[in-house]
């Protein structure tokens, strides 16, 4: 236990501590301009005063960590909701995180379905492999943000609004790693086992279900993890320009119009926390599934 702390936790903590220190230090020069602007002309400002002012501005260029923590707590607590009466939930970060999370998951599921079916087509059909694969790569070099508003408009023309267009944009970003990983995975079953299946004259479906799919799992999970993170990026990006009414991306945008930097950072931190929770819980799922299928997990002790 102690060894684990020293080997794994201590280095991470040290680097986080270093980042926080640098952050506080950087806030002083970055916010000093506004301190001087607000002060009377030619006023001399002593360093301690400068530091305390730059760490406590209302609209700083770089808010310091404790300002952000306070803001996150303020926006995420339930007492805030009650104080704001019935529209209070709309002011809660938890609500908006949920909005973003729901379209992330929706988009991820769409991406998973698209990614897995494309990779099946690619693995089992040479024409699909040759035709589609290069365009799958090209699709990722099209900046999604550029077409996000158009996707929303085109889908609105087809009568689809709300979660659907956001989900499609998330899907667009998340299907790619899944196609790549799954294709690689489906092609990774050992030739000797393929031959073994052949000796038993297994059907194509049996070979797929009993051999190829399980062999693809160790590839699929890391790919899904990347896809999940990409789906979150997609959800945020889709909320940014699209006139979405709620969600972390929409709030980020509106706060940025109003130069409300502290709430902006609070939103960014929530998005980061959301990403962290998603990735960690997915990691746990991965371990559980791999255990069950008898694959070795990356972190398992070998001896």
């Amino acid at each position: 236990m102690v060894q684990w702390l020293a080997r794994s936790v201590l280095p991470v903590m040290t680097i986080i501590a270093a980042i926080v220190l640098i952050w506080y230090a950087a806030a002083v020069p970055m916010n000093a301009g506004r301190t001087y602007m607000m002060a009377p002309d030619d006023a001399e400002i002593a360093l301690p005063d400068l530091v305390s002012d730059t760490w406590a501005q209302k609209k700083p260029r770089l808010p310091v960590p404790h300002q952000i923590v306070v803001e996150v707590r303020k926006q995420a607590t339930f007492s805030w909701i009650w104080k704001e009466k019935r529209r209070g939930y709309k002011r809660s970060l938890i609500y908006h995180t949920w909005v973003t999370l729901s379209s992330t998951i929706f988009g991820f599921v769409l991406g998973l379905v698209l990614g897995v079916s494309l990779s099946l087509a690619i693995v089992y059909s040479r024409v699909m492999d040759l035709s589609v694969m290069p365009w799958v790569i090209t699709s990722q070099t099209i900046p999604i943000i550029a077409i996000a508003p158009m996707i929303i408009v085109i889908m609105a023309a087809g009568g689809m609004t709300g979660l659907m267009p956001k989900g499609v944009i998330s899907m667009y970003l998340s299907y790619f790693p899944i196609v790549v990983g799954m294709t690689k995975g489906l092609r990774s079953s050992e030739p000797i086992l393929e031959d073994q299946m052949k000796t038993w004259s297994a059907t194509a479906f049996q070979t797929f279900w009993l051999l190829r799919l399980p062999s693809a799992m160790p590839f699929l999970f890391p790919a899904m993890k990347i896809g999940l993170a990409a789906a979150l990026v997609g959800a945020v990006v889709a909320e940014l320009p699209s006139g979405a009414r709620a969600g972390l991306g929409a709030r980020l945008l509106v706060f940025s119009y109003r130069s409300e930097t502290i709430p902006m950072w609070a939103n960014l931190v929530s998005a980061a926390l959301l990403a962290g929770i998603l990735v960690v819980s997915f990691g746990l799922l991965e371990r559980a599934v791999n255990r069950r299928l008898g694959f070795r997990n990356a972190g398992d002790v070998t001896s």
Partner: protein
Amino acid sequence: MMLVVSAFVLWAGLWALNIILARRLSEQHARIAVPVIFGLTLVLVVELMVRGLNVSFVILPKPSEMVVRLFTSYEMLWEDFAQTILKGALTGYIVGCGAALMVAFLASWSDFLRRGLLPLGNFVAALPVVGLAPIMVMWFGFGWESKAAIVVSMCFFPMLVNCVQGLAATNAIERDLFKTYAASPVQQLGLLRLPAAMPFVLNGLKVCTPLALIGAIVAEFFGSPSVGMGFRIKTSVGSLSLDLVWAEIIVAAIAGTGFFGLLLIIERSLTFWHPSQRR
């Protein structure tokens, strides 16, 4: 209606052609011909559908109009390309990936630093860093510098994770071998760690390519001089010049795919020895 029907017929015909080509042509030729025909099929089908269903130019312009725009407005497109891709994205890409490589070198000497950076880097690489775009514009101004800055912050961590893993990708025998030769740290880096890291480095560069494009264009949505691909896309949507919007998107796709292809060629020539590249 005729046009819609012919779109389906065309689709079926060209798909059948592709099936035949995939069987008949040599591997080398099929790899080029089949995807090109597939792409052309898509374009033609969209063209016919847009015409056949009378889709408004505001929703989706005809592909032919986009191509015409590509040629008539090439000067403007080139200026936007230079501003966004060459200045913003490429500078950020080089700085971000270069810095990540440098930090990875440092981390490869210190086990402590590596243990600290790797989990953090993995975590940050999963974050929607693109949300920093408005903040970068606030900090670094409206010029290409802020676009480069967001690209740096988007590329740094994915690249770092790849480089750190890559520089640790040597096996025990290789390290022992260099120890028995009493090789200096610089020799070990140059002759062992760096070559062994190349597949990872190139993978990082590939991952960062679309990120750089997205970052540079997104940042322009939050403020820019009156030139740049993101600026043009945004303002052209406003003035309903959708053909110009799509022309910019085509330029971005060509630039991205071209760069990606270049990386594939470099990968092939530098890491020909890696199991994934052997043919």
